[in-house]
Each structure stands twice: as C-alpha cells, then as structure tokens.
C-alpha cells in the first residue's frame, strides 16, 4: 500500500511528472533554438553546457534575478497572477499526455475536451495580461491575440475531434490505445494533421503567426510590460505550450509512445523531437502575416479543410 503511494508520488514529482516535464521544456526550447539557428546559418546557443544545451536554463535563471517592474497604471493583482496561471495552465494538460505507456498520469473519458478548454484559457490569459498592463503596445497585442484566437480556435478544435471520432473515445489515452493496434491517424487523416500543425503555430504565436508579439511592429505585443520573474515564468509557460503542442501531435496523430521496438518513453521523445522539428521548420520559412490576412486565410482555407477532414472520417466510419 505504502509502496504504491510512494510510486504515485515519484511519478508525479519525478517521472513522468514535474522534473521530467521541466527538463523536457528546457530541452525542447534548446532544440528549437538550435534548429532554427541552423536553418538561418547561425550557431545558436553555444557556450553553456555541451553545444549550449543548458542555455535555456541559464536564461531562465538570469531572468529570475532581473528587476521586476510593475507599471504604476497596471491592475496589480491580476498582473502578478497571470504569469503563474499561465504556467499552471500550460503544464496541467501535459499530465493528460501518455508518456510511459498507453495510459497517462491523469486520464478519464473526456480529458481531450479539458485539454482543449485549457488551451483556450491560456490564449485568453494572454489577452487579459495585455489588458491589465495598460500599455498601448500591449493593448494592440492583446486585441490581436483575441482576433487570432477567433481564427485558429475553430479549426483547431474541429481537427482535434477527428482522431476522437476515429478511435471512438474522448480520452487522449483512449486515442493512443486505439492507435497502438497498428494504424496511426496520420495515415488516415493527413489533412487533419496539416491543419492541426498550422493552427498550433498560430496558438503558439510563432512565425509566421507571431502577430500578437510582432517585435518590429508592436515591440513585444502583450508581453511588453512583463519583466523579471514574471517574464521568466511566461517564457517557461511558452516552452510548456510548445511541448504540449508537439506532444498532442504525437498522441493524436503519431500513435503516442507506442508503435516502435524502442522503450516507450524513448519512442515518445523521438516523436516529440520530430514534431518540434516540423514546427521549427515552418517557423524559419515565412515572413509574418498581417492579422487580417491570417483571419481571412483561417476562415477561407483552414475551417473548410477541417470540416472536410471530419466529413471524410465520418464517411469512412459509416
């Protein structure tokens, strides 16, 4: 009995819990930075640790020690709470992702819906963060975050339902379980996978959809007033969002941690790195879109394609 509780605690705190997720977040940030640097003919992180692998941690610690400024006009309590909430909200869904086997730490029928809900909340939080910091640049950034959400949210959620219909389960673990029998959803729903990746780029606010943060246009958009510890937490939260995005791609479309001869966590990691590669690759390829262009493209192309994918799934099941 005691042993089982101890195991549960170990799972939550070490593997595949907090410690593992933190290291994963920093590792994925390093991988992303290094990869984009390679695409752009630069070195990327180089000095801290072998090949600069510890650079994200160094950056995090550095930011923690920086001066933390709260603007005089800001709404103090929400302004301080938002970074914490963002971190929590971007980390929580990761516990629903199966890493060691086909079942996750937390898994119940309907956790896919919860993950969708929490992902929406993080977007709303960034809008709120912009609003309470009362800066003109952040207000524009916040409005852009909101507008962008109207564009990507609908197709994102539609295509996330695709694998659920295919597997007949609303739980991520259930979807992975179904795929472990041999057929990955990327084989049957390649269109959905493409739409899903594009929507995730928009959700993560990365080039070409980094419209809410657009450095050269509105400085840092909704992030502009956050500094020191708050910025460190938000950046960490963004890393977790990247991990979450990649691991959702893995779980929903690439069969999760199963399907190869390697041990499960290793399989998961390899697939995760592959998905991060896709997301980083897209980031290095384009110029930034304008918000009206993004919205037009989302409603003209992404949503019809997402609907088409769902209809195809329905038809094939029938």
């Amino acid at each position, binding site marked *: 009995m005691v042993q089982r509780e101890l195991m549960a605690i170990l799972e939550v705190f070490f593997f595949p819990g907090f410690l593992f997720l933190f290291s994963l977040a920093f590792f994925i940030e390093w991988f992303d930075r290094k990869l984009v640097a390679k695409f752009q003919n630069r070195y990327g992180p180089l000095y801290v640790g072998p090949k600069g692998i510890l650079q994200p941690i160094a950056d995090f610690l550095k930011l923690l020690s920086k001066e933390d400024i709260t603007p005089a006009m800001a709404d103090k309590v929400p302004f301080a709470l938002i970074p914490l909430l963002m971190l929590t909200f971007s980390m929580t869904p990761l516990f629903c992702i199966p890493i060691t086997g086909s079942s996750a730490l937390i898994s119940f029928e309907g956790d896919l819906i919860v993950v969708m809900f929490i992902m929406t909340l993080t977007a709303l939080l960034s809008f709120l963060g912009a609003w309470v910091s009362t800066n003109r640049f952040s207000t524009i950034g916040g409005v852009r975050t909101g507008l962008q959400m109207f564009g990507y949210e609908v197709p994102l959620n539609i295509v996330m339902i695709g694998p659920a219909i295919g597997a007949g389960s609303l739980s991520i673990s259930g979807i992975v379980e179904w795929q472990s029998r041999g057929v990955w959803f990327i084989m049957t729903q390649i269109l959905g996978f493409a739409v899903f990746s594009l929507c995730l780029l928009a959700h993560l606010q990365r080039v070409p959809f980094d419209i809410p943060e657009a450095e050269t*246009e509105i*400085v840092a958009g909704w992030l502009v007033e956050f500094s020191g510890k708050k910025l460190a937490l938000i950046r960490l939260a963004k890393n977790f969002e990247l991990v979450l995005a990649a691991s959702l791609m893995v779980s929903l479309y690439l069969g999760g941690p199963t399907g190869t001869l390697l041990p499960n966590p290793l399989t998961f990691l390899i697939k995760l790195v592959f998905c991060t590669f896709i997301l980083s690759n897209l980031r290095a390829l384009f110029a930034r879109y304008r918000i009206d262009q993004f919205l037009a493209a989302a409603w003209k192309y992404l949503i019809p394609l997402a609907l088409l994918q769902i209809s195809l799934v329905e038809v094939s099941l029938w």
Partner: protein
Amino acid sequence: MVKAIDIPFGPQHPALEEPINFTFEVEEERVVDVKIRLGYIHRGIEKLAENRTYHQNVYLVERICGICSFAHTTCYTQAVEELLGVDIPERAKYIRTIFCEMERIQNHYLWLGFTAKAMGFETLFMYTWRDREAMLEVLEMISGKRVNYGMNTIGGVRRDITGKMVERMEERLNYLEERANYYKKVCTKERSILKRTVGVGMLEPSDALNLCAVGPTLRASGIPQDVRADEPYAAYGEIPFRVVTYDGCDVASRILVRIDEIIESVKMIRRALDGMPQGPIRVKVPKNVPKGEAVSLVEAPRGEDLHYLRSDGSDRPARLKVRAPTLANLPSLRKMLKGVNIADIPIVIAGIDPCLACMERVILVDTKSKKGQAWSGEELWRYANEWYRES
C-alpha cells in the same frame, strides 16, 4: 465610430536603428496622420567642419554616415577639387566609381536584411547579412577597413587596386551576383513576402516628384532619375549602365529596384575593372582653397547626396552644408504612411532606407511663444560647452 488614438513610435523602438519619433494618429488599425519629430542625434557636423582644415574634414565627412561613408567623402572632395580647379587622375576616378558601387552593393544587402526583419522574416535577414560579408571582405582587403574606408583624399584616392585584388574581387562579385539573383527569385515568388509588400506604402509618381523623393524610392515609382546618369561624376560617363526603375510604387518595387541595382552594380564594377587605365592615383593639391562656392552631387546608395561648400580663401571652409538623401525622402515617407495598417508601419519606414543621424536637423523652439529661433555659432558653442557645467 472609433476615436482616433495616438501611438508613439520611437525614439526607441525595435524596428528603428536610430532614434526618431513618429506619432501616429490611428483609427482602428489605419493610420490617419503622422507627425515626425527629428533632432535626437544632431551632432553639429556642419559647424565642426568650419573649425577644421579641408584635409581633416575628409575624415569628419566620412563619419557622417557609417554605411554611405564613401558617397559623402566623394561628394565633399569633388566640391573641394572644383574650387581648387584640380582634375584628378583617370585611374583615381575609376577607383572611386568602383568603391561607390561596392558601397551600394553592401548597403543594399544590409537594407534587404533590415526590411526582411521588419516584416518578420528572420531567415532572409540572416542570409543577406551573411552574404554582405563577402562585400565587406573585399572592401577590407583593399582599404583595410570595413566601413569607413579612408580611401578618398582631395586630389584622388589613397590606395590602389592591384592585380591580385582583382582576382579575389571577381570571385566575390560572382558570388554576390548569384545570391542577388536568388533573392530576386525569393522576393518575387515567396507568397508571404508578396502579401506584406505588394500595394503597401504607395507613392504615386506625381507625389514622388512633387515631394522631391530621391534615389531608389523615386525609381520605384517609375521615374528614371539618377545622378550617375544625369550628371555623371567620377568615371560614370565612361561606363555604360542601366537606370533601374519599377513602376509598382510600393514596397515590393523598392525591394526589386534595390536587388536589380545590386546586379547592375556588379556588372558596372566588372566593366570598370576591365577598362581601368594605368597611371597615378592622386595629385598633390595646395593647402589653401581659393575663394568661391561649389555644389557637388553624388548618387549615394540611398539617393542623391548634396554638399555645398563655401570658401573664404583660407585652409578651412567658411561653410559646409550637407543634405543627406534621407532628409529628401521624409516628406514622401509621411505621404506613404497615411492610410497604412499599423502592422505595415515598420516595413514602410524601412522602405526608404532611413539613415537618420546623417540627415539630422535641429531647431530650437521657445515653448512659450512657439517661435523657432536661429542660434549663432557663438551661442551654439556656449550651449555645447557650458550647459553641463551650469546644471
């Protein structure tokens, strides 16, 4: 109806390399009106020039601009040579032409990267700046420096281009031409670039003429005006070249004009290297300059550069006036910015290739009476030297 709000842009902003302040009056996402405020980095170079000899001023003038330093020295030395009545050797003219064009190439590569960054295309930014190094390497090989070359002197140039250097230059020029062709392909095919540049920051040809736009900004509005062709200086009269124009009147055309100018410059350098006569590279000139006035024009990478020089017969100029190209482009920039989307502001500003420190002007305004006031040299000196001591 949404009330218009004012958005400050600068003097410190990630999209700006140098301090300048724009106040945008914005309705929803559209810019309705722009106010431009200058004067953050005025350095008083014109005043400084009056205290130095003509030879010392070559080095001062070189520091007006970090990027088009050679255009400024060429312009200045030409004015002095005109006053002196000196004809510089043919070889020196060719070397000046070659340097002018190499400077244009490195400036346009720099600008292309800067514009790419303004539209959020970091990869293009990194690539162009990497390729620019090829040009800087050549400049360093010949002159010993990467930006302020110290090549020009009154009566010619200070360093010669030798046979070995020519070989290395050929190799680098081939590379730069190939890359320029590649970027031309990227900028005409890549959809995300086209989406951000086509039809953005329009400047109609009539407006461009009325507002006295210069350089690539003017040529992107379809008007073939270029000092090199209209009033040839150095060896431009002897080297055939095409004045590049595009008639899109938008940022896309400004990009294409500059890329085509890179390709054209490469060809011009090749022709100049082929036809370069042998002989001395400089002539000795007297220290004192006879009384008189001279105006000199040069096509700097950013457009027409003008130096006016008045001499009172001593070894120091009585007045030097510099009109850098960016100042001539500011009125058209204001025109271009009206009606654009907030998201397009950086790319439209980048489109004129602003170089602010070169063109800085200052006027002192009494805030109570709202009157501008001209200061005498003595007052300026006192302000510069005693203001800090007093406060």
